[in-house]
């Protein structure tokens, strides 16, 4: 698991916005993942998307990393922001834009 955690840390250190999701940006495989991709597109930001369906060990690893049981997981500036519901709420309140502007 250490190796997976190191890889996750690498992703977060080399990319400002990282989304761990099911499927790809172009073809999300889950409605929750698709919704977060949609919101990030609306905000016009680029981000690294990691498809956990392609990386089964990452699927378990990211849950333990954040101590969060579900996918998607959005990270901004190495900080775990939340899953689909939190991201949606933050977007609706204008708070997500503020986090991105920091």
């Amino acid at each position: 698991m250490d190796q997976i955690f190191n890889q996750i840390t690498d992703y977060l250190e080399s990319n400002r916005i990282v989304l761990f999701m099911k499927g790809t940006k172009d073809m999300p495989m889950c409605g929750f993942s698709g919704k977060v991709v949609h919101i990030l597109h609306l905000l016009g930001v680029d981000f690294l998307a990691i498809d956990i369906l392609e990386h089964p060990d990452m699927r378990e690893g990211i849950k333990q990393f954040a101590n969060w049981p579900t996918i998607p997981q959005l990270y901004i500036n190495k900080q775990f922001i939340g899953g689909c519901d939190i991201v949606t709420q933050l977007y609706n309140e204008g708070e997500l834009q503020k986090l991105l502007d920091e």
Partner: protein
Amino acid sequence: MAIEYNQLYTLLQGIFKDEEIELIDTAGDMNHYEVTIVSEKFNGLSLIQQHKMVYNAIGTQMGRELHALKINTKVK
């Protein structure tokens, strides 16, 4: 992968009171639920901490027996 409504509701009751919990089986398939919880327990907690409290109530079944849960939390 599915979890019965009553089973999920009972898990939530482990932390929250009846009047704080509103649980809906959105697809009628015992696999996609939406829960709204209005509780004073959320007072002073971040959104992540609020949602984590809900996940903690459900325990290991989240993401396994239970595929999809939309969570709304509000401070009472």
